[in-house]
């Protein structure tokens, strides 16, 4: 940033560390002094691009690249108008298209391409969507809300930690004071020699000290992993029992029909059984149905138990 300077008076940050660079809507830089001089009357034209400027619109330049300052300025303005949220759109796709459109407008305005048309477009949009803009003004985007919430949580937890530490300190201080008071009381009332009492007190004080130390070190231990399993839970380390079984083997079923053998599925057509059965329609065939199936079943039913054996 040291090599940046005012284009008019050629002062640089290096020579004048307190140099303040300002930037206006057109994105061209001037130092504070030059702004005071050139815009003494409140308005004038930019030295570099002749855009009419107002003095009140000059801002301190935040970024090294003044174009970014300009862009951010424009972007903020555009965002005030184009403030629709994701839930204003029926689908994500449309929302993304909308975002791109906004981006286009900002791009055009910053790069001075097609400014007139873009401005017209913006005005048009503003008129059309006046109530939505009004309604959304106060609302934050969902992500913004999330962020706020996180920040709040963070603040709360740090505040709580601070309070806890404070309370702890207070408690310790009180305990110390109490023990001192107790010693004084005892020295006043007791008949025991003072030396002994002092020695006793010393021991007690040391005890108190170690207790405090311990408390400081004591943080509550977690008992649970983030996976939800208890930390010291006993888990069986034995290998899982391996079940050894004979593999299942398919054997075609044999049905005893006590009669002549039932014709096979493939034979039905040849023997003419299918002649009087309704043919499969196109829709049924799509599902894998053939008329032979039903026919076969019916014949099986008919054949079974024709000549039951006696006894």
């Amino acid at each position: 940033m040291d090599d940046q300077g005012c284009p008019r008076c050629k002062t640089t940050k290096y020579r004048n560390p307190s140099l303040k660079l300002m930037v206006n809507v057109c994105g061209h830089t001037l130092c504070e002094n030059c702004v005071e001089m050139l815009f003494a009357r409140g308005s004038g034209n930019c030295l570099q691009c002749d855009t009419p400027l107002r003095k009140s619109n000059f801002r301190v330049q935040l970024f090294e690249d003044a174009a970014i300052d300009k862009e951010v300025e424009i972007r903020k303005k555009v965002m005030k108008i184009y403030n629709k949220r994701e839930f204003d759109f029926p689908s994500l796709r449309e929302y993304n298209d909308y975002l791109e459109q906004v981006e286009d407008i900002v791009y055009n305005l910053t790069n001075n391409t097609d400014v007139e048309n873009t401005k017209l477009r913006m005005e048009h949009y503003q008129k059309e969507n006046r109530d939505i803009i009004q309604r959304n003004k106060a609302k934050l985007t969902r992500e913004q809300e999330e962020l706020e919430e996180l920040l709040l949580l963070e603040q709360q937890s740090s505040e709580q930690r601070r309070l806890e530490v404070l309370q702890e300190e207070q408690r310790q201080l009180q305990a110390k004071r109490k023990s001192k008071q107790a010693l004084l009381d005892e020295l006043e009332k007791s008949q025991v020699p003072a030396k002994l009492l002092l020695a006793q007190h010393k021991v007690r004080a040391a005890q108190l000290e170690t207790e405090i130390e311990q408390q400081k070190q004591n943080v509550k231990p977690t008992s649970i992993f983030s996976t939800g399993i208890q930390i010291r839970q006993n888990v069986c380390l034995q290998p899982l029992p391996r079940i050894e079984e004979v593999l299942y083997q398919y054997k075609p079923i044999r049905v005893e029909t006590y009669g002549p053998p039932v014709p096979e599925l493939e034979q039905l057509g040849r023997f003419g059984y299918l002649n009087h059965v309704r043919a499969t329609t196109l829709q049924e065939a799509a599902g894998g149905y053939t008329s032979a199936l039903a026919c076969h079943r019916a014949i099986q039913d008919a054949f079974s138990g024709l000549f039951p054996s006696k006894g």
Partner: protein
Amino acid sequence: MKLNIDGLLVYFPYDYIYPEQYSYMLELKRTLDAKGHGVLEMPSGTGKTISLLSLIVAYQRAFPLEVTKLIYCSRTVPEIEKVVEELRKLMEFYAKETEEVNNFLALALSSRKNLCIHPEVSSLRFGKEVDGKCHSLTASYVRAQRHGNPNQPVCRFYEEFDAVGRQVPLPAGVYNLDDLKDLGRRKGWCPYYLARYSILHANIVVYSYHYLLDPKIADLVSKELAKKSVVVFDEAHNIDNVCIDSMSVNITRRTLDRCQNNVDTLQNTIQRIKETDAAKLREEYRRLVEGLKEANVARETDVYLANPVLPDEILKEAVPGSIRTAEHFVGFLRRFLEYLKSRLRVQHVVQESAPQFLKDIFDKVCIDRKPLRFCAERLQSLLRTLEITDISDFSAVTLISNFATLVSTYSQGFTIIIEPFEDRTPTIANPVLHFSCMDPSIAIKPVFQRFQSVIITSGTLSPVDIYPRILDFRPVTMASFTMTLARTCLCPLIVGRGNDQVALSSKFETREDFAVIRNYGNLLLEMSAVVPDGIVAFFTSYVYMENIVASWYEQGILENIQRNKLIFIETQDAAETSMALEKYQEACENGRGAILLSVARGKVSEGIDFVHHFGRAVIMFGVPYVYTQSRILKARLEYLRDQFQIRENDFLTFDAMRHAAQCVGRAIRGKTDYGLMIFADKRYARADKRGKLPRWIQEHINDGSLNLTVDEAVQLSKHFLRQMAQPFSQVDQLGLSLLTLEQLESPEMLKKIAQIAHQT
């Protein structure tokens, strides 16, 4: 030998076995049976690797449907090579014993830098350059362009592999990196892509941690690995730091400047393409409007490892409209970049949470959370569309977009710290934005969820129960094994006082204390007179080491030491250090004797073994705590306390002790090795420190070696070294710490073995 482990026939390629190896295999078998995760600690040098490999291979052979793949993750390339060599031995043993053709495929995978055989690309020095160059030769659109323009350079090895390599599976066998390269040269196939393709059907894959833990790489390499795999993380004592590093982002002013260049290039390229080939951009636009559906389908069928960077919901939704077209996206990047620049211009340290950052970015540059979340994915798509060949140039903008995605995805477990200068140099402005992950479980969660068994193992994992807590998983076995020894070959001594009774400690208050430094010097001096060959001394930090060495020089201690041994010093420069190491080994080898001064957490402490005479004594000067003033560490400690109820002190001590154990463990690399371990700080004598050392070291610390003076320590070491110098042969070990098959199967030995594993 053939072992019967709990009903499983295990081929073990050696004639003898250590009892703890048998016990280790038992525990491992139980873990695999229960299909759960395990944490196993076994001392280095007791054959962890071969035990792991032989059991899991046996398990794979016995139950090929239960465990389909072993993924073995190690840290460095030499370690990967070592694992493959062990595996080769095992496979040869199988071939000899069973006399049938083995159809096991095992291979190592490493980066392009280690695998490339393209004459031009492989001559590049840095990994990033190799990756970039390779991409510029093999990217799909480069190859597509070749159809129209035959002069377009492509990699002939990749072309050859793509043409025929995919149809023919890699023949069974064991391949290390060199084998792959040889094969590649012979067949003219690219070994890197061949390896990457082959890991999908390999039985055993050996590669580095990053291929599984770093979400950016894991997504490319490991996402299609089968669920029924066993994952082993070896040398995993630092796994939490690896996880954290893989999710953290550091942004400096330089990154942003480079990013600015990237964005400019992007814009120019878009402009150019728009004039020449607008259809391409339109096609991308159409795809984005439809949503990233292809990726979504793949994940639904559960063939992918979930990517923590890219949460599921992104895949279900289309890219938001505001960054759909390329120009808008570049504008978006520009705004984000300028915002980061303005943030880096701070004068004081800022620490904030992700939601605070998001709120601020919305207020300042109107960037919503949702487009941020899609940033990484959108950038990848754009880079693909623009057909940018050299992606290594775009690392800066990729980094920034990853940061954008991470910061908007996770509201917890991360913190943003902006430091305008380094703590040590408060006058030099060097702003850094640390986006630091505080929860190692985020990076490793997909691994635990996806794979059936994950084994975390190392020589130093104590206390074992802290790892499940910081990594947030539920192991079915947690065990720590000791080393059964025929003779006590390690001798840990805690030196707490100097000869003048000054307490020795590296704590902050006594850092500059002359008496302490002098006594440390005395300790080293006296040890250099008694210990033969090599001594390795570890300090807590580079700064501390420099101070002490300077002060020793002034006091003339260095001169006295040099009469006994040569002195070598580890520095932050890797080349210098490896030179020092080489010379140190030379001095040990020819009998002159040497001392290596190095730093805990440094290169030497993590990866270099000092076997036998290279390290007869290790002296640990002080307790190697991390630099506790760093804000990142503080934030992490706070997070650990709030989320996992781990006290700051507990974690710091745990971290210091695991590094101390790593350092002293460098000297003992096997049962025939011996070495002194000297802990020179009185704080080691406390129960809370001592209790966090690994069990195999703790066992040998008795009350007599707790708070020694330098003199007493020297006496004890003399005694120890004289004992160790006696001849020692394998026969002495047999039956005690080394077993034959018959000895192993005797009932009393089996009973003894059951006690080795220490369940927690």
